[in-house]
């Protein structure tokens, strides 16, 4: 692949082109994905520059890998399959618009959670967060990758909280999705009262859905609007610890159907200890004191009669808890409700919380339904046993999404350098076993792509046609997902 630094410099300016090997090193390997050979890094400052980069890539056969977040990189979607130019979007970091009335922000890819949360808070709103995102994680990238948010009632559909986008396809064409498509420029739409809140369209297309989850293989996203919600005036967190996951599942089903609660997640003792430990060296000790499973939920009051809202929610949830045979508590070992409230509203501390206890970790996550979770937990335990991997080094996180219709189920393997090989083996075999057991790897990073796409050849055939339409020369993150052939 030709890497003409001069031509790239002509587009973004020589000061925005780098071949610093230390800088490029973070794109060589991430999690289970390795083999990246980033040659150069460019930092565009505008949509026009990105379009020129794509046009150049088409002309020169360059592989462009878009990346917005700060390291550490953990999933490998931005680790190139071979040579590539890294397009670092972190410099496009403007919070373009924050609309309190319509509860929406327009953000560029470089806006991080650390940056956005206080800005949104000042407006009396809150960001719909995944659990403890990396401090330097791009908010746009998080939504683009369908990272689950912790408040299921606000997760109406898989696109949430992402609404409208501006895209540059692999053809170099510019496109806008949802109500941002117009007619009219953003400024003209704003003048007419538009807020880019409707995520669907334009017309009979819905390209935002196609681009979400595509790991940068179909289009680059220049900005998006992000759904925000009202910051509660009263917010209380509860813990529901229990020895049996089945009871907590029952409680969860009962509570989420009538849209009770705000935050709602289920954590194993290991995972809850990892999330909550102020001192990572105490994770083992805390985990040993905790119940095997804990539901963490929040209840909120807003502008009107907040105490009354919280009161009825607490009462109704207590009734559901009683029916399910569980009981809420205001703290768990090492963590108060107040501390948990802060955790749920913040990015991860540094170092990244999953890396803190043992130094390294690997995640296995997929979608399923809550009633099937115990089955997958058994599969994971069996695989860990098979590999002699200590069960206490596997954390489990269950995040209801789509208002409780699905869950994001995540197993985290914690390991130190001495256990790296064993963890790697477990990652591979457990991924395989979970896939065979019915795990839906809807976000198929790295080796999961082969597992996921082997199950759905018709989807693969259709996606390759989509790739051929949107990125006919295969210049966007070549070799990822099912796009191992550049042009179909």
């Amino acid at each position, binding site marked *: 692949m030709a890497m003409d630094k001069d031509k790239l410099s002509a587009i973004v300016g020589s000061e925005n082109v780098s071949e610093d090997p230390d800088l490029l090193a973070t794109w060589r390997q991430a999690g289970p994905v390795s083999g990246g050979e980033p040659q150069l890094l460019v930092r565009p400052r505008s*949509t026009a520059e990105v379009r020129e980069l794509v046009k150049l890539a088409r002309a020169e056969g360059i592989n462009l890998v878009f990346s917005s977040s700060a390291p550490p990189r953990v999933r490998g979607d931005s680790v190139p399959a071979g040579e590539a130019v890294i397009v670092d979007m972190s410099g496009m970091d403007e919070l373009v618009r924050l609309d309190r*009335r*319509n509860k929406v922000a327009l953000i560029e890819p470089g806006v991080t959670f650390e940056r956005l949360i206080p800005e949104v808070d000042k407006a009396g709103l809150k960001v719909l967060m995944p659990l403890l995102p990396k401090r330097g994680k791009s908010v746009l990238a998080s939504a683009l990758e369908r990272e689950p948010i912790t408040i299921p009632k606000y997760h*109406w*559909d*898989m696109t949430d909280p992402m609404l409208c986008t501006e895209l540059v396809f692999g053809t170099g064409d*510019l496109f806008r999705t949802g*109500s941002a*498509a*117009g*007619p*009219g420029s953003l*400024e*003209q739409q704003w003048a007419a*009262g*538009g*807020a880019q*809140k*409707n995520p*669907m*369209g*334009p*017309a*009979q*297309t*819905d*390209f935002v*859905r*196609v*681009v*979400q*989850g595509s790991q940068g*293989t*179909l289009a680059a996203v220049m900005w998006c609007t992000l759904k925000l919600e009202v910051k509660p005036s009263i917010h209380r967190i509860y813990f529901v610890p229990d020895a049996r996951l089945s009871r907590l599942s029952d409680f969860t089903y009962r509570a989420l*159907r*009538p*849209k009770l609660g705000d935050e709602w997640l289920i954590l194993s003792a290991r995972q809850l200890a990892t999330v909550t430990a102020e001192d990572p060296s105490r994770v083992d000790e805390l985990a040993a004191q905790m119940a095997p499973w804990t539901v963490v939920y929040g209840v909120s009051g*807003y502008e009107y*009669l907040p105490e009354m*809202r919280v009161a*009825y929610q607490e009462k*109704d949830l207590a*009734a559901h808890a009683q029916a399910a045979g569980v009981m809420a508590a205001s703290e768990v070992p090492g963590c108060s409700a107040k501390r948990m409230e802060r955790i749920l509203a913040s990015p991860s501390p540094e170092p990244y919380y999953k890396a803190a206890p043992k130094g390294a970790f690997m995640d296995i996550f997929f*979608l399923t*339904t*809550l*009633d099937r979770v115990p089955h997958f937990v058994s599969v994971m335990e069996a695989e860990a046993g098979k590999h002699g991997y200590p069960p206490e080094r596997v954390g489990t996180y269950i995040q209801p999404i*789509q208002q*409780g219709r*699905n869950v994001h189920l995540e197993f985290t393997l914690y390991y130190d350098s001495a256990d790296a090989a064993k963890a790697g083996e477990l990652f591979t075999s457990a991924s395989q076993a979970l896939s065979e057991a019915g795990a*839906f790897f*809807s*976000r*198929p990073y790295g080796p999961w792509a082969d597992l*996921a796409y082997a199950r*759905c050849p*018709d989807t693969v055939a259709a*996606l390759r046609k989509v790739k051929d339409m949107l990125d006919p020369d295969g210049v966007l993150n070549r070799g990822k*997902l*099912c796009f191992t052939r550049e042009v179909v």
Partner: protein
Amino acid sequence: MTSETMTQSFETISDEAYRDLEAAVGAEYVSREPGVLDGYTWQPTINDDPAKWVKRPVAVVLPSCTEEVQEVVRACNRHGLKFKAFSTGWGVYSGCTYDNVVQVDLRRMNRILEIDEKNMYAVIEPYNCGAQLQAEAMKLGLNAHIIGAGPACSPLASATSGWGVGWDGVYMSYGHRNLLGAEWVLPDGEVLRVGSLDSGLGWFSPDGPGPSLRGIMRGSAGALGGLGIFTKCSLKLYNWPGPPHMKTEGVMLDAQTEPPEHMRFHLCFFPDRASLDEAVYKMGESELAYIFTRTAVGAYVNTFAPHLLQNVSRTRAFRDVLSKTLKWGCTIILVGNSEDEIVFQEAVLKEIVSGQGGLSMETMQAAAIGPMMVMNFLRVSAIPMVFRAGGLFSTALARNEAWDTQMDWAEKGEKIKQRWIDRGGILDDLADNPFMALYEQNTWGHCEEIFQYNARDPKHLASLEPLFVEFSVAAMEMCMEPLSVTDARLREVISPMMGHYNEWQKKISLFLDARRAADTGMYCDEVDIDLSKIDPEIRETLDRMVAKLTWSEEGPPS
């Protein structure tokens, strides 16, 4: 319907092709009898030239399963015919737009295949209707989103192929966003299953692995039959805290239903638009409402008692009461899961309404109104009564967006309509007749401006296409996507204002349908429109909008 296709056609199907269709579905489920075929040429809604109807199909087939649908589509491919799916019908978009189309009537595929109570979804076939699905879901403490077209319409059709608006959207979202999976017979006869279904993992997740094919199958509007036939789909169900059976006597306006214990029906009125708008935003932030609509009081009278409205509207005082005094109102149905919750919801609603200087009337417990209204709202039985006034109606929809924009659209629509009412071009419904709803606790809003007409009145028929153009131009002026983005007559004009979306739709059509077997008249076709009957001032505005809003190579206008 397109200008080109507004002529009657009587093309016939070859015997060989007909035999292939018989082989596909069985001889008793195919017909080419003219009388039968003509039954498919009439669809009542959004038909701006009902005198000419839609194209007559060359044959109609009634498959019973996906495999038979595949065989029909393959037969069409073999014989150079087109096909067009039809489930429960309603709009002109259900009809054929070419001369050589086989209408695939899906009425034999009418089952609910599965209801997953815990995970809150149902798997249904195309001819299962909203009322059936809702009735079965309620037995399990669940409910189904029913679109504004009413309970006789197919939820599959709106979720996969049409729109999906309904006044329960505030709690139960929008058709497309409720889709969890789909079985899709592509225009070449192959089957594509969308989401986790294609991995053999069930109907629970619609997107992935990786990119979502939902983004190809439709947008805010569906492909309206232009990309194949959907034979099954999985749809989200929502909480229903009422009884498993709604005890009801009678139908429509004679219905008497026992209101559920924790349901309240409020008619709210505000002194002006600003206070109504503020209240709507506050209701959204308070996460209130199971059903919400802003439907003008005059529109209610017009729907339920059209002759009464025609009479009272001649009296200035009554007219002013309906169109001015009670103008800024909304209807909100609250449903609680417990006594405490419904008490809380009502208390908040009262604070919001009184805080904006409004007043609220709870009518659920009123013997004369409540029992009649319950199912008309819950099951959306009332809306189809809009046909009563003149026999037909159409609608002017602009892009669903922030509530403020929808109120702007309602006001604009009222002004446009009043001019046409004054000149006798449409029925007098007091002009202010929007159907407005909220989605997902006011994440965005909806407004379509309803207008009614009499198909036997030549003046009304002559008004329809000019109105269609005028509403479209008005939407462009307000930076809103008009309903005509799905209409072949204006796609060529509007598409370049919106990122050339139709060029992408043509590409999608091409890669899925190389042999052009699907009827794409409502999806990506473009035809010329004769603008000579359009008011010169509107034409001039359209020209100005084209110059102002068309994208350049650099993108949208700055």
